[in-house]
């Protein structure tokens, strides 16, 4: 098993690193290569009951920081909070920064950027020639602990993650990369911020009970809203519920992001 996984990893490393290096010197090493494979999501996909196929991809080792995002705004001032169109970002967008192009005490450079909309996160990743990870990619990467690629059945690990969710979100955010890397070399998937995914708007979890069993309403085409396969995995369920409740222009005090790249 190990042997089969190492080969694609190596290939990915060889291909992704030069690509990343193109963007800027600092980008080299910013991504970890993930081999992908068959993955059982916590979501019940009626069309993929035996799991989804994740293609090899690269994921940023750490969430995007305030300093990273400021560098983007210097090149793309149309995304500053005083210039962005309201269709792309609500009024609280980057509201914790000292100014439109100034970080300040509530947004230290090495803290994850939050109060960012899906559109802004998407634009940042596009700027790097990257993209947001899909939900499946994010969940796959986040299933790992420090030593196992799939730690989801480990009760201790689940407890640890839930412990973070029970902490007050009023506390200041820690630096990115403070926590140990997971088995893929990716930090902070749990325990720091929530993260946008490219397909956040595909997570159609219908929370409105009144629409249940009313096909005439036709709210969802085809098989309808998603449901959960693993109701014990509360941490991931909360992520899904959060993402499915947000519109692309919404921002929150805990919602950040990181970028991904497909293996060429």
């Amino acid at each position: 098993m190990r042997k089969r996984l190492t080969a694609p990893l190596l290939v990915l490393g060889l291909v992704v690193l030069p690509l990343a290096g193109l963007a800027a010197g600092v980008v080299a090493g910013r991504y970890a290569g993930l081999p992908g494979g068959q993955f059982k999501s916590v979501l019940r996909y009626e069309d993929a009951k035996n799991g989804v196929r994740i293609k090899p991809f690269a994921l940023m080792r750490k969430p995007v920081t305030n300093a990273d995002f400021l560098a983007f705004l210097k090149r793309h001032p149309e995304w500053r909070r005083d210039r962005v169109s309201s269709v792309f970002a609500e009024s609280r967008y980057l509201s914790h920064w000292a100014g439109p192009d100034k970080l300040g005490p509530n947004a230290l450079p090495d803290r994850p950027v939050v109060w960012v909309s899906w559109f802004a996160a998407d634009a940042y990743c596009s700027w790097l020639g990257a993209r947001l990870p899909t939900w499946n990619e994010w969940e796959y990467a986040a299933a790992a602990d420090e030593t196992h690629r799939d730690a989801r059945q480990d009760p201790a690990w689940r407890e640890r993650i839930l412990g973070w969710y029970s902490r007050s979100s009023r506390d200041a955010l820690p630096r990115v990369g403070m926590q140990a890397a997971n088995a893929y070399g990716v930090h902070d998937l749990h325990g720091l911020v929530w993260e946008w995914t490219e397909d956040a708007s595909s997570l159609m979890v219908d929370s409105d009970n009144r629409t249940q069993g009313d096909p005439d309403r036709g709210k969802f085409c085809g098989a309808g809203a998603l449901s959960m396969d693993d109701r014990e995995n509360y941490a991931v369920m909360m992520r899904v519920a959060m993402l499915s409740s947000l519109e692309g222009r919404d921002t929150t005090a805990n919602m950040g992001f990181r970028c991904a790249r497909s293996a060429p």
Partner: protein
Amino acid sequence: MTMLSMKHLLRGIAATVLLGFAGLACAAQPAPPLPGDSIYQLPLPLTDSQGQTLDWRALRGKPRLVSMFYTSCQYICPLIIESGKAVERQLTPAQQKRLGVLLVSMDPARDNPATLKKVVDQRKLDLTRWTLATPPANDVRSVAAVLGIRYRQLADGEFNHSSMLILVDANGRILARTEKIGTQPDPDFVAAVRKAVGG
């Protein structure tokens, strides 16, 4: 340079600019800036059923019903088209002329001018009012996001998606939306459409 020759120069420039734009002026009035909450803030090249590619800002100028669909969809998508027609039937012919309908495909891999045209012909859509168009694959998420439409592609190539009609004003601001799909339109939504197109 004296003040006079400066004035001259400026006038010359102005004249040149005016001449340059004279040809365009008939086709398009100089558009006022878009409101910040306009869906047209998103740059979106759309290729329609006649094979013409234009940014959707070219659709500014009249209120429009907007939705997303895909041509190989068997069930709900034909209903979305029927819903658009049902709203139109609630209007006078003069009002119908003042309302556009835009259906954006969420399936650029399979939808092209030919498949779109097939739907136009089958459904007998009047192309002076209806636009069926495909965005580039990379833009589907963004257009769905500005419209507040959720979708997910299934393993078999079909899509799950929220079905709604969205009413935008001439500048692309969302005025109303309805999730009541079918031949009996939502009266509140129809009232909003009537108000948007005027008496």
